[in-house]
């Protein structure tokens, strides 16, 4: 597979997941503002933006949040921008992704381009983004060959899921004084129903955190996502001749280390240093991303030709 195409597929995975998770995060934030009468709109918005990597927004209100994380195409963190990223990556690899998948991606983009989501009720806009991501993901799973290219997409998706879930959990940690914080966090991860069913409603914050971090049955838990990313990476290694050392070895090690720390570390300690632990997970994702890029996508960047030297 061409390195450039592999990179595109990896980023389709990342962007799709990012769009989906951003929509969850945004929707929950909006619900929280409505449902909790004592919540400080400005402080909560600031935390949310900080968690998403936006600093220095002066006294943000929910409109600012909606714009920056929602429908603004020029804001790099918005769900529309993330979907645009997926669409451009799919366009670059249009002969590789399945026709049905391309059409699903493109139709979705036509629904949201030109700030169209601005004119849809925010709740509906978030729902639309999530549904369309599920459609695209589902079509990809059932119409693409599960070869190397699909594995890159899976790797991208899982890595992004770890990254985003850790951010969602981090935001809960900052909002710990709100009685709704963990309920909202569970909702943001699409885990509320699963959690209630698992613990029959009588559960503590620590159990909620445990569920999101460690549950082996829940497909969006950090542990399951890390494991899935490892599996994708391992299967990519086996297609490239099983080079188990070097840069991807490093990527695998980083994933394994993060997983082991979660799995075998004590939950109390994790809970005590939750923001710090979550930041560390995000750093792991970024390190894995870099290692994979260096190893598989090398040379895929634009090359420069100058007087006979490329």
């Amino acid at each position, binding site marked *: *597979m*061409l*390195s*450039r*195409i*592999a990179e595109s597929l990896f980023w389709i995975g990342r962007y799709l997941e990012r769009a989906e998770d951003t929509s969850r995060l945004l929707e929950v934030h909006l619900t929280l503002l409505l449902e909790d009468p004592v919540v400080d709109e400005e402080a909560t918005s600031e935390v949310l933006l900080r968690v998403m990597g936006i600093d220095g927004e002066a006294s943000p209100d929910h409109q600012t949040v909606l714009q920056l994380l929602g429908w603004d195409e020029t804001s790099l963190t918005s769900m529309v921008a993330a979907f645009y990223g997926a669409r*451009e990556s799919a*366009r*670059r690899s*249009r*002969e*590789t992704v399945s*026709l049905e998948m*391309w*059409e699903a991606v*493109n*139709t979705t983009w*036509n629904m949201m381009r030109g700030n169209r989501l601005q004119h849809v009720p925010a709740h509906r806009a978030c729902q639309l983004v999530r549904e369309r991501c599920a459609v695209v993901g589902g079509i990809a799973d059932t119409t693409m060959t599960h070869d*190397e290219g699909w594995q890159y997409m899976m790797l991208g998706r899982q890595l992004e899921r770890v990254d985003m879930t850790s951010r969602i959990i981090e935001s809960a940690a900052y909002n710990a004084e709100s009685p709704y914080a963990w309920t909202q966090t569970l909702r943001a991860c699409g885990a509320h129903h699963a959690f209630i069913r698992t613990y029959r409603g009588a559960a503590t914050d620590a159990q909620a955190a445990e569920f999101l971090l460690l549950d082996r049955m829940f497909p969006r838990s950090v542990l399951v996502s890390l494991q899935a990313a490892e599996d994708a990476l391992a299967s*990519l290694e086996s*297609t*490239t*001749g099983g080079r188990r050392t070097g840069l991807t070895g490093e990527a695998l090690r980083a994933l394994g280390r993060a997983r082991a720390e979660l799995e075998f570390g004590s939950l109390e300690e994790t809970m005590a240093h939750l923001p710090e632990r979550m930041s560390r997970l995000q750093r792991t994702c970024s390190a894995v991303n870099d290692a994979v890029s260096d190893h*598989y*996508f*090398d*040379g*895929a*960047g*634009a*090359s*420069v*030709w100058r*007087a*006979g030297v*490329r």
Partner: protein
Amino acid sequence: MTGAFTDYPTTPSIYDETVAHRGEVRPGYEQIATQFDTFGLEDVRNRGEYVSKSYHDQGVTFDYEGEERPFPLDIVPRVIDAQTWSHVEAGVAQRVTALEAFLADVYGPMQIITDRVIPRHIVTTSNHYHRVAFDIQPGNGVRVHVSGIDLIRDGEGAFRVLEDNVRIPSGVSYVLTNRRAMTSTLPEVVGTHRIRPVAAYPSRLLRALRAAAPSGITDPEVVVLTPGPYNSAYFEHSLLARLMGCRLVEGRDLVTQGGRVLMRTTHGLQPVHVIYRRVDDDFLDPVAFRNDSVLGCPGVLNAARAGNVTIANAVGNGVADDKLMYSYVPDIIRYYLGEEPILPNVDTWRLEDPTHREEVLDRLDELVLKPVDGSGGKGIVIGPQASRAELDQLRETVSASPRGWIAQPVVQLSTVPTMVDDGLRPRHVDLRPFAINDGEKVWVLPGGLTRVALGEGELIVNSSRGGGSKDTWVLSGDGRRTRVEPRAQRQVQIGTAPQVALKRSEAEPAEQEQQQQQQLADQEVGPC
């Protein structure tokens, strides 16, 4: 009788392909006219809108000044009967064969110049005659793997050649998608015609590209080289790559090492044998051409010269489709093939010939002037529509560089009914049939791209000037398809599976079910 084409206007000097001057519908269009009458104008219009919507979602687009636009497809097909088509087909194949011979000659022995059929300077002063390509021997001798010969129908309805495209002609993807779109939008109409299919194009192209592989390569790696998603024809590049199952590469995916071309993959560098390039000569190889190009791959031309890679279409083909060379093509056909041209040219004056020039400069206000290098309708001046100032300016430009211009009479392109705001109205069309040369035979895709100028009276049909397209139907035989009745089936009871039988009949229309039961009762109803 009132119908879809009842108040359809016709003009005596213009050939309308659907409606003759007396208002009667021409052969080939009768069924469409009847069916459109049945639908009614509103239904036809709605179906047209459905097509645009689906093109938008499928991303059937072209890039216009950095913006992706859906390629407009008109709902009325253009029909060409079997006999007319066989004439066009033979004419296109003849022309491509002659142009192949010409290219092999001018990049080799130059016999045609020695024999004084064409003046030497016409070849050597062409901007597309590349000395770096001299004596490169292509894999199976083919240089024009893909060509698009632009045709028009004149006032009498006769096909004439307007222009040859043997560099990197585009548009074939729309031929393929237009047919699919029409099939889903007008199934009743498509279903009652026998239309020659176009879907074989990608496999024909792949076969020709594989046949052109360097010698000794039995299973060549064929790639499609694109300038990238911002190129106006990117949709086409990705579609062809997908349908051929080839990789779509950009210049930066390729490297040359030791006279070989390799591509960067996740498994390391891997060899490439045939490049179906959709990058212009000038940008293809910065070593040989523009050294500021990042779209190409440095050294690819040397690899071709060494015989390690085939570039399709070959580098330097532009010398044959230059609009000045166009005026010599009838002579080229006579010289190499010893035949008379089957499809005539449009009359052409060469500005570099002093007597021609004098005549043209006298009649600037009634002729069309075209720059020999232009494409997409760029730089064309239509005399009768130009202002005095424009004509004075033109006179100066032409006198300063006569080699760069040709002149032609204003040809009234034929018209075909087209859905516009006012309903169905005549709009000018041209036709670009595509031909593939695999080294054994020149195969002409039945149909080709019909481009239509959507403005009233507008003569330039290019998409960059707001043109649209039509599905082009080449009819087979008399063009009519008789309904094939479903073969009578004996119902077989297998164990306990009545649910399955029930489900099957549920899915079918009740009438058909009754019909089948009727046939069952009649037992055998002879083979269909």
